[in-house]
């Protein structure tokens, strides 16, 4: 490779790293009258793994669900402020939430395959999104989720017959199959045994070359191991004793864990919380 091209690609990479795929501006989320998340402004860079950490009730899953408008499905959930995918305000009244979800995939805490065959678990979404060559797509997606070898002989069996770890990889395959730009993951390993969890972490490392990943995790070790950037959220008591979350600190993972700027972050990562 000539040096100039090399430099150019390095520039490209540098640009990619600063390019924000998702962005929020003073985002507030309410459940009914209760504030759940206060004034979050955050940039999620392309092709990186961004981890959200923090105690329970700090709103990290709530924030995650803002990015694909999944909170729309929760009664009483209301949003103020702005959230962008690229330069598009995803809460603008002209935006179709279904279209948002086709570009921003999601994997949940508890594996939730459809009560359908393994094949159909992937083909269902593909058909809805008018994809072609379903057989190929199913195989490719299962391979990307490192599940193909385990299930290639039983594609007709129910997705629910798989083990928890396999189910979760099936859910990842399902998300990957739609080729979204972003995959949101809400504690994807917390309901799995450590070995299955490890497999998924390995998988994420590979997936970030093609996808931008945002992962909510309760495990600081996990954030340290896989995340490029880490956001620490904390919960605070409001006047009436209700808790709301806010973003405390957001930086490169290394910086957050080695030189936290805020006392709250420091307390949390050292285990002095609660």
């Amino acid at each position, binding site marked *: 490779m000539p040096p100039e091209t090399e430099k150019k690609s390095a520039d490209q990479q540098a640009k990619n790293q600063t390019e924000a795929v998702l962005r929020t501006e003073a985002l507030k989320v309410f459940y009914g009258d209760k504030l759940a998340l206060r004034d979050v402004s955050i940039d999620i860079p392309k092709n990186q793994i961004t981890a959200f950490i923090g105690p329970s009730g700090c709103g990290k899953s709530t924030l995650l669900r803002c990015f694909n408008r*999944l909170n729309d499905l929760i009664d009483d959930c209301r949003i103020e402020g702005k959230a962008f995918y690229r330069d598009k305000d995803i809460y603008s009244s002209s935006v179709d939430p279904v279209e948002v979800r086709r570009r921003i995939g999601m994997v949940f805490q508890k594996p*939730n395959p459809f009560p359908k065959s393994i094949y159909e678990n992937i083909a269902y979404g593909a058909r809805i999104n008018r994809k072609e060559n379903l057989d190929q797509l199913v195989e490719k997606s299962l391979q990307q989720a490192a599940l193909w070898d385990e299930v290639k002989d039983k594609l007709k069996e129910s997705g629910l017959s798989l083990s928890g770890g396999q189910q979760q990889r099936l859910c990842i395959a399902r998300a990957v199959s739609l080729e979204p730009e972003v995959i949101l993951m809400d504690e994807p390993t917390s309901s799995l045994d450590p070995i299955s969890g490890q497999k998924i972490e390995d998988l994420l490392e590979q997936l970030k070359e093609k996808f931008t990943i945002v992962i909510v995790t309760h495990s600081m070790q996990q954030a340290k191991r896989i995340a490029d950037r880490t956001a620490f959220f904390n919960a605070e008591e409001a006047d009436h004793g209700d808790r709301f979350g806010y973003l405390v600190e957001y930086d490169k993972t290394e910086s957050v864990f080695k030189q936290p700027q805020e006392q709250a972050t420091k307390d949390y990562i050292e285990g002095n919380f609660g």
Partner: protein
Amino acid sequence: MTSIAPTQNSDQSAAQGMDRSFARPQTLMDLVWTGIAFTLLGIALLPLLLVLGYVIFKGIGRFNLDLFTQQIPAALQPGGGVGSAIAGTLLTVAIATLISVPLSILAAVYLSEFSSKNIADWIRFATNALSGVPSIIVGIFAYGMFVVTIGKFSALAGGVALAILMLPLIVRSTDEALQLVPQDVRWASAVVGASQFQTVLQVILPAALPTILTGITLAIARAAGETAPLIFTTLFSQFWPRGLFEPIPTLAVLIYNFATVPFQNQQEIAWAASLLLVLLVLLSSLFARWITRKSFYSQSQ
């Protein structure tokens, strides 16, 4: 490897007194209460066993092929069967099913998937109220609506009356079946870009189908045994059903009519019809249980 020896001397006393002893009040009370509960269970099951036993005893004598194939006998006529009443019951129940199933399932889908909580609460309350309406009132309602308007007792009027009885049952069971499908699965469908309509049609309904079918089967069994609404609507005849707008015989009304007549032949036929009806209900309950076994999500999960 070092083995761990049981602790000697003083600590051994800790393990003493662990043997079961009936002298202890807790153990005794446990036994007494279990005994009482078991006896009461037996008493509760007794009516079912007695009804079954008595109906079999009285009905088995005429439980033969003629029962299924022959027309209903007139007052002093010997022999005969309930073939025309079976046909009538099947016809009325089929009409009721055709009317009530689509309506109830759509209503339940709306309740469970699309309505806001306030509206859903009101509709659920209304369906519960409807299921509490005595069946004889439903019969009089159908009589006023159809029989009086058309000027004729008819199979159709009976079907409508039974449909009104089945409606709240199927709405409720379908509503419950849909709610058993975890929220997670709805979200999973949403995040692959499915509209709510696609989610309901392609994921939720198929997942809930076994449980929905169970509910429908039980509602059909219940409707097949209803008598009061049919007395006012289908009335009765001896003959094979000749059309939707004609009075037709049904098993339930046949039992009602023949149980009180002084003619032995008709009484025997009524007993055999009772046995048939009880078996029908039992078999559909078994069938319903069998379908439920295939369900993806059940109450126990």
